[in-house]
C-alpha cells in the first residue's frame, strides 16, 4: 500500500469516525464542535477528488458558517430556561433506525461499487462552454457556474434571499424592522476583540483575493463571499459591529444586488448576444467579473443575516 493510499484510508476512517461522534456525542456543543472538525476533514476528501473549489466551499460554509449557526442556536435555546427536551426513543425504534440506516448505506455502497464503466458526462460540453464564446475563464468551475449553468446560479441567489425572508418572518410581529439579537450576549473579552481586530482585515483581503483569482484558479464568488461573511461574523461576535436593522435600505439593496445585476445582464444578453444569459463575445470576462462582484456582496451580507436570526423584540 503506497503512502497516499494509506493516507486516503486514514482520512476516510477519520471522517466516518468524527461523523459517528457528532451523532453520538452527549451534548449539543460537543456535537457541533465535532461537526466543524468533520467539515474541515471532508474538505480534505474533496481536495483528494480534484475538487478544490468544492473543498473551499465545504470548509467555509459546510464547516465554519454552519458551525457558528448551530453554536449560536444552542446558546439561544439554553437561554430559554423553561425548555423541556423530548424523551429519547425506545430500544425498538433505535434498532429499527439502525437497520434502516444500514440498509440505505449498504444499498448506496453497492451502487458506488457497481457504477457503469463508461460514465455519462457533460464535461466535453462544459469544457466547450469554458473555452468557447462567452467565457475565456481559466477555471472551468466558475465558467460552469456563471456561463454554462448561469440560470441555476442566479436562482440559487434568489433561494438565499428567500431563506433570509423566511428567517425574518419567524420573528415576533412587534419586532419587525428591528435588528437581530447580537451573536453573543455577554460582553466579549480582550482576546476575542484582539482576534477580530487582527483577523478580520487579513480575512477581508484573502476573501477578495479568492474572489478575484476565481476566474482562473480555484476560488470564486461563493468562496470569497463566504470568507467575507465569516469575517463579518467574527467582528459581530467581538461586538465591534452590530447586526443592522432589517428595515435598513442599504442592507436590503446589498441582499438583492447579486441576483438583480445577474438578471439584468442575463436579460440584456437577449438583445446583445442572441439569447437569455448569453454574454457578448469580446466582453464576456469583464461582464462575468462584474456579476460576480455583486454576488460576493450579496453572499457576504446574506450569510451573517441568516446566522443572526429573526429581528429581536427585546432589544431597545
Amino acid at each position, binding site marked *: 500500500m503506497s503512502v497516499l493510499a494509506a493516507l486516503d484510508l486514514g482520512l476516510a476512517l477519520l471522517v*466516518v469516525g468524527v461523523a459517528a461522534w457528532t451523532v453520538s456525542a452527549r451534548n449539543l456543543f460537543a456535537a457541533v464542535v465535532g461537526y466543524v472538525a468533520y467539515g474541515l476533514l471532508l474538505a480534505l*476528501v474533496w481536495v483528494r477528488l480534484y475538487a478544490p473549489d468544492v473543498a473551499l466551499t465545504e470548509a467555509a460554509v459546510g464547516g465554519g458558517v454552519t458551525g457558528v449557526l448551530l453554536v449560536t442556536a444552542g446558546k439561544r435555546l439554553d437561554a430559554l430556561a423553561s425548555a423541556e427536551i423530548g424523551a429519547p426513543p425506545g430500544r425498538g425504534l433505535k434498532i429499527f433506525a439502525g437497520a434502516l*440506516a444500514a440498509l440505505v*448505506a449498504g444499498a448506496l455502497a453497492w451502487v458506488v461499487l457497481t457504477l457503469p464503466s*463508461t460514465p455519462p458526462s*457533460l464535461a*466535453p460540453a462544459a469544457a466547450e462552454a469554458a473555452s468557447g464564446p462567452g467565457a475565456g475563464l481559466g477555471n472551468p468551475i466558475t465558467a460552469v457556474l456563471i456561463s454554462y449553468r448561469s440560470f441555476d446560479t442566479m436562482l440559487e441567489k434568489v*433561494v438565499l434571499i428567500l431563506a433570509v425572508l423566511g428567517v425574518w418572518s419567524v420573528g415576533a410581529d412587534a419586532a419587525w424592522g428591528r435588528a437581530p439579537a447580537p451573536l453573543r450576549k455577554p460582553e466579549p473579552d480582550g482576546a476575542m476583540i484582539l482576534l477580530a481586530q487582527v483577523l478580520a482585515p487579513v480575512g477581508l483581503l484573502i476573501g477578495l483575493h479568492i474572489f478575484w483569482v476565481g476566474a482562473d484558479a480555484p476560488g470564486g464568488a461563493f468562496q470569497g463571499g463566504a470568507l467575507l461573511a465569516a469575517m463579518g461574523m467574527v467582528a459581530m461576535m467581538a461586538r465591534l459591529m452590530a447586526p443592522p436593522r432589517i428595515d435598513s435600505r442599504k442592507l436590503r439593496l446589498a441582499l438583492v444586488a447579486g441576483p438583480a445585476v445577474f438578471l439584468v445582464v442575463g436579460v440584456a444578453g437577449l438583445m446583445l448576444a442572441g439569447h437569455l444569459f448569453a454574454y457578448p463575445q469580446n466582453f464576456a470576462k469583464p461582464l462575468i467579473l462584474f456579476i460576480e462582484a455583486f454576488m460576493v456582496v450579496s453572499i457576504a451580507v446574506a450569510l451573517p443575516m441568516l446566522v443572526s*436570526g429573526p429581528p429581536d423584540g427585546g432589544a431597545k
Partner: protein
Amino acid sequence: MTPSVLAGLVGAALVGLGLYGLISNPHPLRKLLAFNLVGSGVFLVFGIVARRGAAAGFAFDPVPQAMVITGIVVAFAASALAVALILRLAAASGKVTLDPRAWTKPGEGGQ
C-alpha cells in the same frame, strides 16, 4: 481501491450515520445536524460522478462540482431557516421537541 470509490463508500456511510441520528436523536438541533450529515454524504456520492468524468480525458467533470457548490450553499440556507423555526417553536411553547406525543398531553397545548 481508487480514492473516488473510497470516497463514495465514505459518502454511503455518512448517509447511514446521518439517517440513524435523524431518527434516534430527540433534540431538534441534533436532528438538523444529522440531516446535514446525510446531505454531505449525498454530495460526496454525487462527487464520485464528477471524478469519473476524468475517464473522458478531462482532469475532472466541472458540472457536478459546480452543482455541489450550489448545493452546499442552499443546504446552509435551509439549515438557517430550520434553526429559526426551531427557536421560535421553543420560545412559543417552552418545548424543545418535535415528538407529537408531547403536544397532545391534556392542558399543555401551545403557548
